């Protein structure tokens, strides 16, 4: 009888110790998981903040670019830098009244049946100072 009670107490102690170990492990695991959660959440927040920062810089840059492209500034730069650019007018526009497809086919095949290759003539007018 004495043996049995001692064995029971021993088993109880073992059970308690095992329970404590298990409980502790679960607790530690939970803490570790919560820590991981916290790290992940922080990493996510940092990423979101970084994305927001990039978007902000991108918006700022777009505004700057648009500001630099405003017509009034481009005109001023044209004068300051002596680029000599002029607004587009009708002169370089060729109005095509005939069938566009036929016209393109004719242009593409112009040199096909001749021995002499068609070389585009480029005339360059040099500025005279």
């Amino acid at each position, binding site marked *: 009888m004495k043996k049995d009670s*001692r*064995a029971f*107490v*021993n088993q109880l*102690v073992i059970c308690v110790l095992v329970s404590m170990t298990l409980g502790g492990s679960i607790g530690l695991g939970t803490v570790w998981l919560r820590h991981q959660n916290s790290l992940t959440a922080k990493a996510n927040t940092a990423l979101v903040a970084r994305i927001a920062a990039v978007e902000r810089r991108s918006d*700022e840059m777009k505004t700057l670019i*648009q500001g630099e492209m405003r017509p009034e500034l481009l005109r001023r730069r044209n004068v300051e830098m002596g680029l000599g650019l002029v607004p587009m007018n009708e002169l370089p*526009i060729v109005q095509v009244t005939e069938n566009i497809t036929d016209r393109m086919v004719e242009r593409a095949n112009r040199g096909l049946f001749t021995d002499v290759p068609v070389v585009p003539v480029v005339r360059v007018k040099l500025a005279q100072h």
Partner: protein
Amino acid sequence: MSKGYASNYRIVLLASVLFGCFGALGVRLFLLHVVDREALIKTIAKARENLISETARRGDIREARGGILATSSSRLKVGVDPFALRPQDEKKWPELAVLLGLPESELRRIFLTRFRAPAKPPGATATNAPAGAPGATGFSLSLNLPNLTSVTSASGAPAEDDDGAIVESGADEQAPKKIRWAKLRSDVSEKTHADIVKLGVKGVYGERYYHRSYPNNQLGAHLIGFVNRQQEAASGVEANLDFFLRGQNGWRVGERDGRGGELPQFLTRQVPAAHGYSITLSIDLIVQDIVEQELALIAERYEPLKASIIVSDPRTGFILGMANYPTFNLNEYHKVPEDEMERMKNAAVADIYEPGSVFKIVPVAAALEERLVTPQTIFNCALDKIDHRGKMRSLPGEDHPMGDLTVAEIISHSSNKGAAQLGLKLGEEKLYRYARAFGFGAKLGFPGGGEVSGLLNPHQKWGPIDITRIPMGHSVSATVLQMHQAMSVIAADGVLLRPQLITEIRDAANDAVFRYDRVEIGRAVSPQTARTVATMLMGVARKGGTAPEAAIEGYDVAGKTGTTQKLIEGQYSKRHHIASFVGFFPAQKPQIVISVVIDDADHRAPGGIAYGAKIAAPPFKRIGERLISVLYIKPTAQPAPPALPAANFPAGGRR
């Protein structure tokens, strides 16, 4: 069973201690979680709760080609907590001053001002401030107390004063208040802020906000409108479509740690910020620029009181360009003097004027539609009086004597007497009905806001002479946009379209939420009548018409001049006129309608009178010529036959 290895006594003792500990823990947990639960939760919630608001970004306003007209970019209000400064950072202060664009002395003054003087009781004289003790950082910072009043909010929480400083509240009102945040600069860019952060001066930090900017300055100012310093949309599309643009601020509730940092893992509730929608306007940046250049030229040459130009597509009603002189810079709206606030108004839709002879398209189209006349019907335009329903009615005068004119000649030579006779033929009721059908006397639904309805009295209220004056554009007032849309009726085969300014609305993910399309208000006249009137209007810009100055080579131009005497102190002035030209081209297949209205340019006009043909028609031509290549307007394949038979009357009649 295994043999035990411990004595009974020890085991029982160990077990008792263990159970005792667990029991104590259990009791404590029970007390914490059940008995004191509410009180503890309140304390914790108060100490750790963290409410963070997220400001929604206001949507962009774009032009038809995608260029940005209005945008919100992030800026920072950078300030300093003088109590958080470290002595070892002092050597970085000069560099910080350079980054902030502040004189170093000013930066030092702000950094070293750590207390704010207490609020002076009424009537109290200025007292010497107490000397400052060395700061918490351990280094001596001299106390510099500007003679300013301490500001705290009603709730006792720290509040920002006019100087941009946040002072700590305290029980003793007479004690100097600690400054916990003093503004250094309020418009720091992200890039500069990044440099400041890199510099690493502890205690200097920034508060982010969205700043509205307009990259094109004054371009399209009256259409776009602006957002004021209180972040309230004040005018234009900004105000009228504020609901879509402003978005909705978000917030999130979580917890913070002992240092005030957010603990994202304890986020409990979150409503993300819904950024504002972007608005795409039908305004074409190039067209708008051409229009504004032309207005600048008009202003330089004629120094008018004001001027407006509208360019639109008659097939859809979309406005491609609209501008007024004088104008203002959207980024510097606050610099407009108070006595010049009128320049911030979109005069093209908010101001009314007597349209004058341009209005003649209404009685002509109405008479043709009612089959009362044909283009060849002849009227005696030399009469002074005419019988109308048994009473003699006086006819308006002409600038030049005119004889018998066909209806086509009445319009191309702008005969007032002819227009009056057409009005008499129509009668009050029909003339009024057609004027309304052409869009006069009612708002057109311009989406840019600020629109007025003009003045067109119901025909029952007309005076005896109104039936002869309204057909020539007197006794009726309209906005420039109304006159523009009336001419568009002729260009759009007789249909009055709603003037459209917005093409689409896009959400923050750039997906189209809504697309606008052509909206018909109603049919004014049949397509046949509209084409007939268009053909007659072609005579205006040809040799023999009132405005050959508006002719564009290779294109048939249809249009009408107007030279309206201004009402000065109740009388029509002979020295103050409103010159206008409203027209479209190519006349047979209209692609563009242009209105040019110039108010009071007489003092610089040739001959001292600002005729529509001389002042407003040339800008029409110049704008039209430049738009050909921009909008790919094809020339007329075969020029239309002359709309007018050769007429024998004095040339140069201009109205």
